[in-house]
């Protein structure tokens, strides 16, 4: 039976909806996702909740999952994600190729970074398999795949040296920020949009804060004062985002990445503001569940079928971008496109739930 609505699935559902809307750049509804008033966006939330969910695989401290089972399960999950990524990338390439033909427009391939598949197919396919070549807007799953392949090591480190996990994760993040260390792309020249070496910190924080031992309980016990500290900072960050105020990166002290807002490297500004936002938003679940049960159940439905919904949502967002280009619409067409996309995502999740109930 599918699990009942809960806070983690609900927030994951929120992230999935926002990722879908944000992956249709230029659409009217993009202005209504929380990135408009926040230094961070739904990507931080999605990865944080992925780390949070790791606690269910690891098991509670009093009844941990056997190590062999733990490792196998995490590697299998990583393999499933990798396969899902490959499937949606191939589907995306086909969708782009078909659209390019139908609209007589080769720019569609260039627009989403797919041109290498057709102009340098040998290198591009090697890059696709090794994740060094990523289509535009299909760059979160490669990060997620790398994090899940790393998750057995994270879980084992936590099991055997629990006090070391946070310092090691933070140290890797800090060194990569200072040294600007990231993964290169190939055959396209550049860098990964999401640096896994930095984003692992978000994943590990999600895992550690979810646990009933370690820093999680201390933070939960002190949430009230933390929220009082968080409130003015989050409000200020929202105002800065709204008016477009930001630190000139060239004026920031070195190493620059420690003082500026950058998504690729998950800079301290982003992760710090995100954690404070989590502290402020976390109490919303209870009143929302009480007063808006339909909404919370619907978003939880998306959240508990996250991989399937994410994959469908990625392809729908791509199709929506192409459709917006083809019809050159406005607010009305944007509304219809987004509503249809969300409708398909909810239907997919409902069908997956129904299928699970049959089993």
């Amino acid at each position: 039976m599918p699990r009942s609505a809960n806070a983690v699935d609900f927030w994951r559902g929120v992230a999935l909806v926002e990722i879908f809307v944000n992956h249709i750049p230029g659409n009217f509804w993009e202005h209504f996702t929380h990135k408009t008033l926040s230094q961070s966006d739904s990507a931080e939330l999605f990865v944080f909740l992925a780390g949070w969910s790791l606690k269910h695989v690891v098991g509670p401290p009093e009844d941990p999952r056997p190590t062999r089972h733990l490792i196998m399960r995490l590697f299998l999950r990583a393999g499933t994600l990798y396969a899902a990524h490959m499937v949606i990338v191939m589907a995306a390439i086909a969708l782009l190729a078909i659209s390019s033909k139908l609209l007589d427009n080769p720019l569609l391939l260039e627009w989403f970074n797919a041109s290498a598949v057709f102009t340098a197919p040998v290198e591009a396919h090697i890059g696709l398999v090794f994740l060094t070549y990523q289509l535009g807007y299909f760059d979160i799953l490669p990060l997620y795949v790398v994090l899940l392949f790393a998750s057995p090591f994270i879980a084992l480190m936590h099991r055997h040296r629990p006090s070391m996990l946070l310092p090691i994760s933070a140290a890797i993040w800090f060194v990569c920020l200072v040294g600007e260390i990231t993964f290169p792309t190939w055959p396209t020249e550049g860098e990964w949009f999401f640096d896994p070496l930095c984003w692992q910190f978000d994943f590990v924080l999600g895992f550690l804060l979810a646990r009933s031992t370690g820093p999680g309980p201390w933070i939960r016990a002190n949430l009230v004062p933390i929220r009082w500290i968080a409130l003015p900072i989050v409000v200020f960050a929202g105002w800065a985002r709204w008016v477009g105020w930001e630190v000139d990166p060239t004026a920031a002290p070195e190493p620059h990445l420690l003082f500026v807002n950058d998504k690729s490297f998950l800079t301290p500004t982003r992760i710090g503001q995100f954690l404070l936002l989590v502290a402020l938003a976390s109490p919303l679940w209870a009143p929302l569940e009480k007063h808006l049960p339909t909404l919370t159940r619907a978003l939880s439905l998306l959240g508990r079928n996250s991989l399937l919904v994410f994959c469908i949502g990625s392809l729908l967002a791509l199709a929506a971008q192409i459709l917006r280009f083809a019809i050159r619409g406005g607010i009305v067409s944007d509304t219809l496109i987004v509503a249809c996309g969300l409708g398909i995502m909810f239907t997919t999740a409902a069908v997956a739930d129904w299928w699970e109930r049959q089993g």
Partner: protein
Amino acid sequence: MSTKRRMCSISLAAAIALVGETSARGQPAMAPVPTECATPGADGQPAVGFPNLVRAMNLRHRIVVLAIGSAVVGAGRPGGGYYRLVERFLESTFKGLDVVLVQRGFSGELARDGAERIRLEVARSSPDMVFWQVGTADAMAGIDPAETQEIVRSTIRWLHEHQIDVALIGLHYTPSLRDDPQYQAMRQAISDVARSEGVLRIRRYEVGETLDRLRRQPSDAIAATDLGSLGDACMAEHLARSLATGLFARRRPVDVDKPGSGAR
């Protein structure tokens, strides 16, 4: 590789070889533009200069160029991607010059996101010049051209305030968008802002249009050529030549130092 593409590469290589030969004798010169790329490819000369590039060249014999915009395929192409052609052209034209190319392209990135990233990447790599491919993704995503124009304008001004030269690389050409008002409005917006801010604009659209016209002539061998690849090669050709011309014109000792330059 198609015959024409090979010809284009060979002619470019020959140009580089020829320039290298003359440079070695202390008299820099450029080979003729390959026939396929003969259409005027750049706006802005002769008024456009590259004071920051010249300063870096004279002081350090090293220039750092940041490329923002579409991701560029380097592998599988003879000599690497088209920016590598620019790099090699300049290094061959100016003997002893070290051109450091920092590629940070993300395909599909809108001008607003590119502008944010330019500021960060400037802090990371301290470039003397930015190549910015801009407009195509915004036009495809239906962004208001006036909004994109304002972002590009403010970014150019910010770069100039930080003593960094700019070259805009205009929109791609494809026949199906010849009559698309949104696309053409964006093209005009980028052209206008380049003109009003006095920066070099590589006329990628016009180059592509000319190549397409040549390709449609039945007797021409260019018909068998991949238009996009040839357009890229010509774009590199025009970009390199515009830079070289600007550098030749302005090359002289400078007395102003620029702190903090050099890629890391």
